[in-house]
């Protein structure tokens, strides 16, 4: 148990009211009495604090309060004709002065101080829309009126009826609730009703009575009352005021503070000595108080940096061991307030996962702050949390220590550019440039294998993001140029192998090719060439005479890759100039491999495509029987190729296909295959036109592994979908946490659906009738401002109006309005083990009836079941896909729905939501049939499961899906309204009614 520091006497400050204050003045005090002026009248009453001698011996008060033996007393007027109630003004506020039977009149000093503090706290709070104040022992209502003036709502509690009346005159009736009750009883009632407040005021008397005679004794009841406070304060509590005065035992301010600290540790306690100053400057004590508030939560005026002690106090709440926070608190004290708040927030968040992690965070955070900005520190923290999630505590501790390494890579990421960020743009860019559609992937060095361009995962060579992006772009253009301008038409590997030092030869060849390609780029894409030129400044500077000669040669418009090869000998011995930044490397072997595979595939495809073309154009010919000698000689296909000029291809020509001398318009796929062959070979060889024979299907890859095998085997995450999961404590996602796999339900051919329809045949017929009526139909709208036909009724009325002298309406037409149903609905059926028995039967019957209705209606729908166990094995069972017709197999699958394991709803919603979003529809519904809360074998239950499900539903809503839940869990109302929203769920209290109700609910939802 952590030993909390005690509130010391040295911490007590003075809170003073200076008089005169409006119509109130403390004129004199002494000898156990004080003299005050309220408005036009002077009152004198006893005061236990008024020690010493008064300044004036003679006080000429108007009203004097005389004590009687025992308790109580009465007011004596010193002359006749004095009013017993009047009004005074305090700084623009009206105060009703009524002579109370206990000697009270006007307001006390403490009321003024409370009022002042309340206004300050409430008006300084920008975060809350509604602030609720609980005012216990509330007295004359001045304090409540101050709270109301600041904009709060107040619950005003007092046992005395006369006081309540007085309070009403001060406060009015708006925004305030008056309670005449014994405070302890009322507080217990509040606890039962789980009411919470944003500010609580307790000016407790030493003794008091409730309306039914209940006794309040401060010595006995105050500690009890204070112990209730934690359950009365809201999360955003702005403060608590506890004060007292008088009584047999004198309380010290620090004792009040200690009381508060013991029940509400970790925040600021201000013990106060209350005082009033008289007009001549003497100070009269007026009781003690303690204020409790939490400064770190809101935007308050002030905002001074917290001291080390305050920081340590707040951090201690998250630590396990004593004094652990001392060092870090001291280091943090030097930072500005916003940084302190930031660190405290993060520490609180981390502590919810693990205090060990919180300690490590706090220990290293100052170092992190020195190296990075707040965003960087947050990224570092999230990274360490990810490590903790996936690998455990010790690797996470190591990650915390590795702040410097992280900071370095973070900086690089700031100015640098990551491949993922630019991949989309660059892929579209290179696709627009022309040629074969190249893919982009991350790799170690920039190079291409003629189908994929590999780029480094990050680039931070230059200071600015833009410059790094330009470098990426230059790399892409260079690699693209290699395939477009024919670098790989040559067998580079073979060419280079002829040299003794083949590596050097390759490097020289690359340099030469780059010169040639740059010249081509300059001619065709001047804009990008301008951007690339600075990147080769060093190369150009370092070129010696032989290289310059070569550059001049390769710069000519007709230069090809053979020219580069030819010049290789001349530059082999010269010093190699520095490669340009975008050059990358050449990997001839990889290119050769990929190219060969592609050339083979292209040839096959070309032949197949020609075969199909021939079948289309000459359908009467038999593929296997050559009709003429000419055909036999050709090998079957009667096509010819003709070279034509084509400006947009790099070689300046393309091929047209001719059949029997007449040109044949080539469909798109034929053209693209021809373009690909051209790009590789520079020509389409004649032999490509020779038939490969019937059924020339080239052997593709072996079939995919089935989902079951993948799961059973070691390929755990292959073929699966990974989804993030929301951790509500961390307020962040756990990346790729849930592994979802789709499987088919095993169909069960037992005529279940037919039996169900027979069992419910009456209902089924009725449903069909109602749903037929819902189908899109034309509605005749009358009294339209424009339309197809004249609305005679409206016209008659309008003419009558005109005859009458009134204005004639313009809505005189009828219009035929077409109601179109454009709805797609996805049903998510709970297949967890808890549905065994009745519920499973009811679910299946409900689905059978629903499908009949939906078929009548014509809406698009899909049915998927879900279950699973642990995050690594979330299973989704396909019953009916959107594009599947409602046939026997689907019916058998509905029958085959069986209860399985657990219910991890978040991942299911995300996956099915993704499937639903692929469907084009104006309205998209996600309907869940479930029997209870989200619940899985690992920690996915309770608040965590509900919060993640809720977040998944919010994501679905954002993407335009309307979620709805139908459940039979009678306790569902608690959590369903939180997850789905107040109107988006329906509870069916009896399982038997499920089939009847589901269709009904659907009908209501969608009409």
């Amino acid at each position: 148990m952590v030993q909390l520091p005690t509130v010391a006497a040295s911490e007590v400050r003075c809170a003073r009211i200076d008089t005169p204050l409006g119509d109130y003045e403390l004129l004199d005090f002494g000898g156990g009495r004080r003299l005050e002026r309220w408005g036009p009248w002077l009152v004198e009453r006893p005061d236990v604090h008024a020690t010493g001698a008064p300044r004036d011996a003679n006080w000429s008060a108007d009203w004097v309060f005389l004590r009687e033996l025992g308790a109580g007393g009465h007011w004596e007027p010193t002359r006749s004709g004095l009013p017993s109630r009047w009004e005074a003004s305090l700084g623009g506020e009206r105060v009703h002065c009524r002579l109370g039977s206990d000697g009270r009149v006007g307001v006390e000093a403490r009321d003024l101080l409370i009022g002042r503090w309340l206004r300050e706290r409430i008006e300084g709070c920008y975060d809350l829309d509604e602030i609720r104040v609980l005012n216990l022992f509330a007295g004359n209502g001045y304090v409540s009126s101050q709270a109301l003036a600041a904009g709060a709502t107040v619950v005003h509690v007092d046992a005395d009826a006369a006081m309540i009346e007085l309070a009403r005159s001060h406060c009015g009736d708006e925004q305030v609730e008056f309670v005449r009750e014994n405070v302890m009883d009322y507080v217990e009632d509040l606890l039962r009703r789980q009411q919470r407040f944003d500010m609580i005021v307790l000016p407790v008397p030493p003794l008091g009575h409730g309306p039914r005679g209940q006794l309040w004794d401060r010595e006995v009841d105050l500690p009890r009352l204070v112990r209730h406070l934690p359950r009365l304060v809201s999360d955003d509590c702005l403060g608590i005021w506890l004060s007292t005065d008088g009584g047999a035992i004198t309380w010290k301010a620090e004792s009040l503070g200690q009381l508060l600290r013991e029940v509400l540790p970790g925040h600021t306690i201000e013990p106060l000595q209350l005082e009033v100053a008289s007009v001549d400057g003497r100070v009269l004590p007026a009781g003690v108080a303690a204020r409790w508030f939490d400064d770190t939560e809101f935007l308050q005026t002030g905002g001074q940096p917290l001291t080390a002690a305050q920081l340590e106090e707040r951090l201690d709440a998250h630590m396990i061991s004593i004094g652990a926070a001392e060092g870090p608190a001291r280091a943090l004290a030097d930072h500005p307030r916003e940084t302190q708040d930031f660190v405290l927030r993060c520490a609180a968040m981390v502590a919810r996962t693990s205090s060990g992690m919180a300690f490590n965070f706090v220990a290293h955070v100052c170092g992190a702050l020195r190296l990075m900005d707040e965003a960087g520190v947050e990224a570092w923290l999230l990274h360490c949390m990810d490590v903790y999630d996936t690998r455990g505590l010790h690797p996470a501790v190591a990650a915390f220590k590795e702040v410097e390494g992280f900071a370095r890579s973070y900086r690089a990421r700031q100015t640098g550019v990551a491949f993922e960020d630019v991949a989309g743009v660059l892929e579209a860019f290179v696709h627009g440039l022309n040629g074969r559609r190249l893919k982009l992937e991350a790799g170690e060095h920039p190079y291409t294998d003629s189908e994929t361009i590999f780029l480094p995962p990050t680039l931070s060579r230059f200071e600015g993001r833009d410059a790094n992006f330009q470098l990426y772009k230059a790399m892409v253009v260079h690699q693209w140029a290699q395939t477009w301008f024919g670098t790989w038409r040559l067998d580079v590997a073979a060419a280079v192998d002829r040299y003794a030092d083949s590596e050097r030869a390759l490097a020289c060849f690359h340099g030469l090719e780059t010169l040639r390609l740059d010249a081509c780029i300059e001619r065709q894409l001047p804009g990008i060439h301008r951007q690339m030129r600075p990147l080769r400044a060093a190369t150009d500077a370092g070129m010696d005479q032989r290289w310059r000669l070569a550059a001049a040669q390769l710069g000519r418009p007709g230069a090809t890759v053979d020219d580069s090869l030819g010049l290789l000998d001349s530059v082999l011995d010269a010093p190699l100039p520095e490669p340009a930044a975008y050059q990358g490397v050449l990997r001839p072997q990889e290119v050769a491999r990929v190219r060969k595979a592609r050339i083979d595939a292209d040839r096959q495809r070309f032949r197949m495509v020609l075969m199909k073309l021939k079948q289309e154009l000459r359908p009467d010919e038999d593929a296997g029987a050559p009709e003429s000698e000419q055909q036999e000689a050709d090998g079957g296909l009667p096509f010819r190729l003709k070279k034509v000029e084509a400006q947009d291809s790099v070689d300046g020509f393309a091929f047209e296909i001719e059949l029997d001398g007449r040109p044949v318009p080539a469909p798109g796929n034929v053209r693209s295959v021809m373009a690909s062959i051209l790009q590789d070979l520079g020509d389409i060889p004649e032999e490509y036109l020779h038939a490969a024979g019937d059924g020339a299907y080239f052997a593709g890859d072996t079939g995919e592994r089935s989902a079951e095998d993948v799961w059973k085997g070691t390929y755990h995450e292959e073929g699966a979908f990974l989804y993030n999961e929301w951790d509500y404590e961390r307020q962040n996602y756990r990346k790729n946490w849930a592994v979802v796999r789709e499987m088919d339900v095993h169909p069960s051919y037992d005529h279940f659906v037919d039996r169900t329809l027979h069992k419910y045949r009456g209902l089924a017929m009725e449903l069909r009738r109602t749903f037929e009526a819902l189908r899109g139909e034309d509605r005749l709208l009358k009294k339209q401002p424009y339309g197809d036909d004249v609305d005679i009724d409206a016209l008659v009325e309008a003419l009558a109006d005109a005859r009458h002298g009134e204005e004639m309406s313009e809505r005189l037409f009828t219009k035929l309005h077409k109601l179109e149903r454009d709805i797609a609905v996805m049903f998510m059926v709970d297949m967890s083990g808890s549905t065994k028995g009745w519920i499973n039967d009811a679910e299946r019957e409900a689905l059978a009836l629903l499908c009949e209705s939906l078929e009548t209606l014509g809406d698009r729908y899909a049915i998927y079941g879900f279950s699973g166990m642990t995050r690594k094995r979330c299973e989704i069972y396909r019953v009916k896909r959107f594009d599947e017709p409602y046939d026997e197999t689907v019916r058998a699958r509905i029958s085959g729905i069986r209860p399985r394991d657990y219910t991890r709803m978040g991942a299911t919603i995300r996956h099915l939501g993704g499937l639903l979003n692929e469907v084009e529809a104006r309205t998209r519904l996600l309907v869940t049939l479930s029997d209870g809360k989200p619940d899985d074998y690992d920690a996915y239950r309770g608040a965590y499961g509900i919060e993640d499900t809720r977040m998944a539903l919010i994501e679905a809503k954002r993407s335009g899906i309307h979620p709805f839940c139908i459940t039979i869990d009678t306790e569902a109302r608690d959590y369903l309204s939180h997850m789905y929203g107040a109107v988006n769920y329906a509870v069916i209290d009896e399982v038997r009614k499920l089939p009847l109700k589901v269709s009904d609910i659907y009908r209501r939802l969608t009409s």
Partner: protein
Amino acid sequence: MTAQVLKPEEYFITEEPYYEPVGNEIEVFEAAWDNQLPVLLKGPTGCGKTRFMEHMAWRLKRPLITVSCHDDLTASDLVGRFLIRGGETVWVDGPLSRAVRAGGICYLDEIVEARKDTTVVIHPLADDRRVLPMEKLGELLEAGDDFCMAISYNPGYQSVLKDLKQSTRQRFVALEFDYPSPELEAKIIVRESGIEPPLAEQLVKFAQMTRNLKGSGLEEGASTRLLVHAAKLVKSGIDPVAACRSSIAQALTDDEEMLAAVNELSASVF
């Protein structure tokens, strides 16, 4: 030129609208008109279909009445309806009736978008009969020899629901429009905007690049119309890359990544 009010059937085109024929479409259209056959223009947006119609209207000296079709366009919108004026019902002709009465050319743009009940009026006008049934009036309007109907649609936007049925298609003589060849396109741009030929060729090259992206991020590549816009901006002194950015890139897509890619492409050409 100041704004003026015209009745549709009085809208004669007096100045020759510039149109560069790609194939023999002018002759085909004239032949169709001589034989009172209706014409169907197919092609993507911005390829010159409307300009072609204006050209033909000028050439044949008939008024041109254009109707842009949309989801809610019904037969009444085309034929006409009763309106209430001063307590009396008055028949007001729709654009199609006007065209038939005046013997002009009625051009229905994007006909697949309109309601299906428009086929009731189009079919009788488009085949041998050449009558317009005006049911509400209880009359049949027979078209004179000068009347011509033309419709257009973009086959690239075909959806299952909005399709041109065979019973409609086969009543028309179809002309296909597509992006012109690069030289022709450059010539058109030079003629329309007055910029230098090399710059026009670069614009065409850039358009080619965007057309490569059709289907993988862009719904449509840049049409000739967009290129003319860009060229006009350049002529007024805007930097070519900036002109491409606002007149072409921003008009083609809103997707951030695609915008960045298209802007990079334009920056690489100029």
